[in-house]
């Protein structure tokens, strides 16, 4: 690479209260998260020359133009992602930093989807009207099909899947920001009625209001900003836009190809990772990604979970914030804020000692995926 090559580092994170925030717009919430992230970075908005935002689900709010105006900013670079979960937004920020479009970028997401009663009962047919007419609505349906297929191929059980929700609730109990902190047992999980069989309520993300924000800058500038900057040392993305035209698409084998690229390009291996953050629209995502990222073999995710590997005290802490099943539904933004706080050693009771590298991975339904490796040191 040329001398212009730069790496990017996260120097600030900001989170708002989560849950129900009545009377507040999505943009107000995002603005609050940005102010919090700038305070965390110790930066004034005059130092910010980039603004990356994402729209709240199925709304027109959350654009860079609206937030720039609200915050009184005229950044050099502005962009909005329609689906801006934290990973996809972060990658856009890394690109902007690397090519010199901006030096210090704030990235944010805010939503009032709970108090606005946003509907997530949308069609999941990969573009097919017939699928919607058949009643394939909400992410629960295809996730349930994916889990049933996993059961069929590998003998995975509902008791094993329960450990995703149970372990994350154990983590959430130690997270003051989390919405669901009441303990959940496997027995209580199994006693829940099916929503879309074989999935239950505790397998599905909650719907909540809230916001999250990051401040991203060059590794050079990060040194002057925060001594404990968190470095982005690996990124990968992959799409599956052809949806059901792809074989076994609900199992998302394309995530495995993406993970191979992530490991080979970062020079790291799964054993180097001290904690994993998985954007968990459903518990099934956790099962799938543990396997595709190589933390266990294909089909072994159920046993891996049942052994308690992902819970507090386990060998591979997963979603130490509680994830979207227990903390809040923030499109992965709170996963990334938690990853940064863990790498900085600020996670209190749930702090993982000696953390050096974490993996943060996301998917957008069955259509695309993104992953980042965040580290305490530049590569």
């Amino acid at each position: 690479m040329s001398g212009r090559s730069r790496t990017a580092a996260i120097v600030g994170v900001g989170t708002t209260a989560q849950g129900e925030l009545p009377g507040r717009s999505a943009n107000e919430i995002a603005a609050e998260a940005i102010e919090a992230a700038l305070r965390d970075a110790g930066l004034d908005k005059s130092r910010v020359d980039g603004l990356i935002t994402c729209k709240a689900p199925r709304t027109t709010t959350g654009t860079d133009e609206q937030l720039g105006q609200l915050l009184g900013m005229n950044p050099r670079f502005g962009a909005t992602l329609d689906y801006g979960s934290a990973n996809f937004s972060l990658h856009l920020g890394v690109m902007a930093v690397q090519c010199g479009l901006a030096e210090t970028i704030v990235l944010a997401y805010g939503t009032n989807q709970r108090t606005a009663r946003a509907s997530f009962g949308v069609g999941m047919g990969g573009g097919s009207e017939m699928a919607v007419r058949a009643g394939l609505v909400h992410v629960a349906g295809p996730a349930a099909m994916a889990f049933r297929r996993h059961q069929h191929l590998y003998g995975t059980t509902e008791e094993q899947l329960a450990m995703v929700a149970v372990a994350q609730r154990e983590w959430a109990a130690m997270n003051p920001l989390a919405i669901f902190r009441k303990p959940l047992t496997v027995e209580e999980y199994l006693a829940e009625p099916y929503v879309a069989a074989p999935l239950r309520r505790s397998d599905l993300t909650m719907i909540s209001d809230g916001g999250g924000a990051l401040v991203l800058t060059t590794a050079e500038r990060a040194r002057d900003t925060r001594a404990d900057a968190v470095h982005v040392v690996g990124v990968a993305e992959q799409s599956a836009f052809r949806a059901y035209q792809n074989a076994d698409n609900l199992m998302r084998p394309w995530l495995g190809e993406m993970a191979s690229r992530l490991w080979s390009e970062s020079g790291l291996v799964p054993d180097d990772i001290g904690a994993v953050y998985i954007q968990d629209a459903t518990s099934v995502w956790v099962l799938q990604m543990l396997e595709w990222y190589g933390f266990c073999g294909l089909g072994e995710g159920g046993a891996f979970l049942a052994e308690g590997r992902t819970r507090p005290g386990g060998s591979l802490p997963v979603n130490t914030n509680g994830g979207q099943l227990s903390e809040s539904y923030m499109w992965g933004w709170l996963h990334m804020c938690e990853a940064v706080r863990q790498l900085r050693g600020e996670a209190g009771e749930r702090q993982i000692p000696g953390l050096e590298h974490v993996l943060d991975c996301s998917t957008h339904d069955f259509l695309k995926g993104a992953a980042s490796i965040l580290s305490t040191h530049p590569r």
Partner: protein
Amino acid sequence: MSSPSLPDLDHPVEGPFWRAAAESRLEVQGCEACGYLRWPPAPICPECGVLGGRWEPIPPDGTIWSFTVYHRPLAPGLADEVPYAVGLIELDAGVRMIGRLSAPHESLAIGGRVSARFAPIGEGPRLPEWRPAEEHADAEAEGERA
């Protein structure tokens, strides 16, 4: 229904599918250049990029890749339909379709053979529903006897 409006039989892309379904035929587009069978309907072949495509009937037979049973209505209009089963069907012709599975839920299994039956939705349009292949064959035989 989750889609409140009836299918548009005159829709420029999807219309031919619904017109064939109204006559109890399952049709998909075949690319006139590369022969790829396309689902869902689209104005361009996703394999080779050639415009258009000829609608052709395919055997309405396939295998259940997986399925789910909705116990709660997760979109408006489905309250009267739960519990209902939806599956991903791998058709023998090579396309994959999502469809309602019309069978006792405890009898459903991955790998089960199913065939389409065309159920009326409103006046005229019909929607393919998938039934166990044997039951379907029995029903047809009964129809012939009657």
